[in-house]
């Protein structure tokens, strides 16, 4: 019948202390909500990205690609006929934007419909095409098949025409077929179209060229040997890669983003766990006598332990269910913010909804229950060790002495702080800053353990001794005394608030430093008065080229001092995403373009200009362990070539590593003269607007150009930067709210817990206002001490975030930028928040009469 005892004690406890139960559930549910929502939103984006890769690859095993240049289409028949090849399919891809709605992204894929059968791509969307559809796609000029949902979204129907931007001009296409089936919605978030490959080559200026050839090899034999045989017929510069191999780098970056957000969201769970610990320990303290009676009646210590753990598991179950529900709702709100950030930084993903996964839901629930039980373990163990004799014969009317273990906690805290330093020296594990995360954990725990001793010392020295029984300060003095006396109990809620404060300050300092770093970097590295191109500089920028005649005419304009014409190529290197930028480095050198991690700029540029040197970004140097003087082998359009690293430059582009080289070097090895865009340096920089208007007017009938000023580009970069951190601010706000909930929770429980004491105070003459002020002093003191601790730990955490976690996760060096404003803002939030957190408990404390409070014990 032990189950009945459990049921009686647990259920009645929930019902009797329903306010406390609700507060605990709400706090835990909020923590689970944050964790679940982050997991669901970033997970949905990652899943969408992987589905895109999967849907595009289909059954393809290998891909033939060439860096920065198309493959000659003559190769395709040779490949298809090769005895080792079971199936081959040529592909042309073009990223662009629609004319209407403006800036609507679209990926158009040119296919040979007849080669596609064996690849089963787009989850069967192609196999559902009828003969009439195929004829329409092949015979209608510039015919496109659009997913039905996407067509409806942009207001198109079968037979309509629409325009897409192609190298500075809008080209008309016709909707010949509407595609059904889930597969099409998985590619590029459904923002895609399919075309016959010959028509795509024609429209997108890729006549005679292919972006890739997808392959399925025949079964049997050693794959390596067969690939070697195939290699023999490949022209220089063409290489094979595993299908979807190029996307590995992007996936790695999205995973890194997910890891960092998950770590951040875990703080909310941690705060929730603190609430459970608090509830469990106060529940044990309040029921000492009941538990003593149970023990005296023959309940075993293990049964007492399980009683408390099951009670916590109940919170975990209900809080988990509520949190999962809340997580779904919050994920719906966060989805747009998260996918916009991923689109801006990594790759286009289109996530329309959050997929439901029963196994994931069950996992969240189990995690919530496990987290609650872990949080309650220590109080449960303490309860199981109660001696019935001690408890039952405890002196009437007195709460037992609070055992002081300050010195042990302080020693433990100092030990953890000491350990946190060497942890930061650990190298990353597969680019995951394991040491950095471990260091933040030990640092946070260390500060938490130092809290009780610190509170006692601080409140005694700075508060109680100064206020000691001064006229008019009795309420404050009593409040201070209470916090001092019960520092051990209060410390848990204060630690939760301390963590939230540390999070506010460390992330605030990190973002401030990062933003300042990016701003300085833009000033130093993004030179040029005007930026000209067919499309706004973005992820799709490299597939669009400028008309060479337009480039030459702009170059000859007399208002310009210099023109920097650049070409970018997206590729991958040893599993990392990479962008190669080429242009006239002499212009960059002249206008102070790049800032190097070491060496003299002049020497580095000389080597890059005269000795086939390349400049690599700090991120790439970190990923591939490169330093000046090393050699880096890259696949060029003419085959592999080893380049000398002339210098390593600071770079805050988030899409991975970058290599810069002079245009002459690029032309030598890639033999591709096309230009993506121009940077214009004006003789008179004050004439930005007249020059911009003159260019737009001059080429209005020949080319669609986007021209933005340095200031506009800078603003756009910083806008994307700020958008990236929107989600961080949301998470921070929730963590702070939860921490205040912790203070409210702790204070409310302490009011319930010492109801008798408050009754005595009132009985001996304390006015309601005095009791209220005492409670408000307590919560404000709790807030202030959490703030002091949080500020100290947050400052140290910001150093770990900046110099360890960011460096190891993304490869950036961010100069630390201290800001007093963050501390002042946090001070305001915490003092006001803690004061108001005490409001409800202070009302609770005076609700009952003294006589009721004393009698009810």
């Amino acid at each position, binding site marked *: 019948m032990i189950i009945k005892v459990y049921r009686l004690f647990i259920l009645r406890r929930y019902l009797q202390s329903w306010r406390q139960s609700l507060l605990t559930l709400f706090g835990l549910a909020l923590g689970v909500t944050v964790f679940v929502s982050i997991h669901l939103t970033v997970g949905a984006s990652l899943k969408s990205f992987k589905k895109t890769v999967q849907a595009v690859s289909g059954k393809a095993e290998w891909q033939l690609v060439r860096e920065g240049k198309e493959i000659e289409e003559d190769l395709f028949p040779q490949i298809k006929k090769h005895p080792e090849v079971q199936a081959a399919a040529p592909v042309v891809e073009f990223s662009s934007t629609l004319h209407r709605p403006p800036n609507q992204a679209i990926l158009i894929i040119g296919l040979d419909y007849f080669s596609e059968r064996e690849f089963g791509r787009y989850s069967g969307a192609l196999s559902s095409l009828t003969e009439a559809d195929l004829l329409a796609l092949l015979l209608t000029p510039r015919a496109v098949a659009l997913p039905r949902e996407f067509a409806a979204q942009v207001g198109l129907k079968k037979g309509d025409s629409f325009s897409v931007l192609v190298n500075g001009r809008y080209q008309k296409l016709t909707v010949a077929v509407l595609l059904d089936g889930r597969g099409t919605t998985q590619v590029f978030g459904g923002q895609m179209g399919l075309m016959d490959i010959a028509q795509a080559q024609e429209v997108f200026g890729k006549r005679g060229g292919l972006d890739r050839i997808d392959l399925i090899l025949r079964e049997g034999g050693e794959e390596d040997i067969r690939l070697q045989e195939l290699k023999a017929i490949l022209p220089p510069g063409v290489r094979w890669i595993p299908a979807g191999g190029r996307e590995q780098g992007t996936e790695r970056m999205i995973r890194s983003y997910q890891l960092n957000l998950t770590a951040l969201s875990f703080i909310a769970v941690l705060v929730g766990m603190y609430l459970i610990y608090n509830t469990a320990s106060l529940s044990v303290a309040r029921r000492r006598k009941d538990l003593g009676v149970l023990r005296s009646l023959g309940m075993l210590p293990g049964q007492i332990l399980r009683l408390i753990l099951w009670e916590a598991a109940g919170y975990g179950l209900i809080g988990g269910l509520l949190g999962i529900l809340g997580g779904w709702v919050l994920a719906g709100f966060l989805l747009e913010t998260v996918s916009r950030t991923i689109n801006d930084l990594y790759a286009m993903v289109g996530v329309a909804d959050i997929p439901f996964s029963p196994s994931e839901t069950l996992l969240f629930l189990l995690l919530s229950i496990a987290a609650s039980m872990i949080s309650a373990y220590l109080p449960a163990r303490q309860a199981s060790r109660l001696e019935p004799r001690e408890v039952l014969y405890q*002196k*009437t*009317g*007195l*709460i*037992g*002495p609070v055992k002081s273990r300050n010195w042990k906690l302080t020693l433990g805290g100092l030990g953890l702080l000491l350990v946190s330093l060497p942890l930061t020296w650990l190298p990353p594990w597969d680019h995951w800053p394991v040491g950095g995360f471990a260091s933040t954990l030990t640092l946070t725990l260390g500060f938490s353990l130092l809290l009780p001793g610190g509170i006692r010392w601080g409140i005694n020295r700075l508060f109680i001794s100064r206020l*000691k*029984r*001064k*006229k*008019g300060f*009795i309420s404050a*003095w009593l409040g201070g*005394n*209470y916090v001092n*006396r*019960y520092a051990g109990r209060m410390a848990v809620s204060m630690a939760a608030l301390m963590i939230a404060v540390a999070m506010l300050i460390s992330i605030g300092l990190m973002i401030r430093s990062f933003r300042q770093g990016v701003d300085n970097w833009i000033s130093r590295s993004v030179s040029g008065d005007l930026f000209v191109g067919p499309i706004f500089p973005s992820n799709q920028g490299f597939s669009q080229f400028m008309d060479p005649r337009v480039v030459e005419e702009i170059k000859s304009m007399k208002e310009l001092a210099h023109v920097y014409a650049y070409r970018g190529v997206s590729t991958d290197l040893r599993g990392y995403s990479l962008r190669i930028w080429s242009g006239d480095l002499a212009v960059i050198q002249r206008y102070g373009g790049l800032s190097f991690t070491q060496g003299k700029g002049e020497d580095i540029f000389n080597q890059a200009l005269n000795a086939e040197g390349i400049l690599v970004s700090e991120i790439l140097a970190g990923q591939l362990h490169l330093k000046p003087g090393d050699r880096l082998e890259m696949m060029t359009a003419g085959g592999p070539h080893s380049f000398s690293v002339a210098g390593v430059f600071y770079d805050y582009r988030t899409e991975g590593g970058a290599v810069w080289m002079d245009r002459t070097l690029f032309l030598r090895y890639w033999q591709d003269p096309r230009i993506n865009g121009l940077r214009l340096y004006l003789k008179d920089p004050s004439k930005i607007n007249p020059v911009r208007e003159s260019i737009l007017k001059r080429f209005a009938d020949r080319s669609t150009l986007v021209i933005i000023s340095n200031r506009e580009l800078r603003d756009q970069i910083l806008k994307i930067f700020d958008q990236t951190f929107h989600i961080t601010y949301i998470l921070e706000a929730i963590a702070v709210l939860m921490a205040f909930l912790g203070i409210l929770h702790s204070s409310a429980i302490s009011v319930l817990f010492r109801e*008798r*004491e408050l009754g*005595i*105070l*009132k*009985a*001996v*003459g*304390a*006015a*309601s206002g*005095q009791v209220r002020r005492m409670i408000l002093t307590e919560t404000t003191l709790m807030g202030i001490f959490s703030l002091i601790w949080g500020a100290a730990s947050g400052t140290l955490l910001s150093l770990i975030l900046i110099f360890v976690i960011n460096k190891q996760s993304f490869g950036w060096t961010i100069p630390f930028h201290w800001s007093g404003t963050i501390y002042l803002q946090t001070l305001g939030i915490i003092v006001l928040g803690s004061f108001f957190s005490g409001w409800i408990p202070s009302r609770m404390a005076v609700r009952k*009469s*003294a*006589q009721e409070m*004393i009698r009810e*014990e």
Partner: protein
Amino acid sequence: MPLIELRNISKSYPSEAGEVRALQGIDLAVAQGEMVVLSGKSGCGKTTLLNMIGALDRPSSGEIRVDGREITLLSEKERTLFRRRQVGTIFQSFNLIPMLTVEENIALPRWLDGFDDQETAGLVEALLVQTEMTHRRKHRAHELSGGEQQRVAIARALINSPRVILADEPTGNLDSHTGAQVLSILAALNQGKGQTIIIATHSREADVLAHRVIHLRDGKILDDH
């Protein structure tokens, strides 16, 4: 004029089993300097009557005058000030504040009244001497024996020089020897300083020290002698 005057006091509580009539038509007058014992079995209404006089509770009907002042008509704030300045209460379970030391517990009502440490120290010292607790002044409540705790409670009740001391089962949690010591302190206060004291108790030890013993049963005064 009596210091304390109760006229037709009744008190009822609602309960699941119907209305509980804790006090029924109590008329009582206590003169300045009297020591009165309220006796009777558990549940007869002694504590309720003390709570009425100490302004911890309000009667359902009737009047209570203390020093000529009708206390049932006082606002909550005035009742608090009345408790703080006019009444000293001693409880069966001592009701000391665990986080405070002995001297802090004693000084508390005076600090609540706005006096600072300097203005309170002399009085605390005198009460520590009077209750023989000087050697325990820095101890906290849980470090004291039951008798010591009750002596501290008496000292606390006296700090604001109240007109009346109310003691609710002051010996209920003490052994007979310690209980006798506590009663003798109360008797000495009454005899030495003319302090008005009302003691609620179900034991008979206090009867010999009291001027009057009022016997209660079922919320009514059975006899007053």
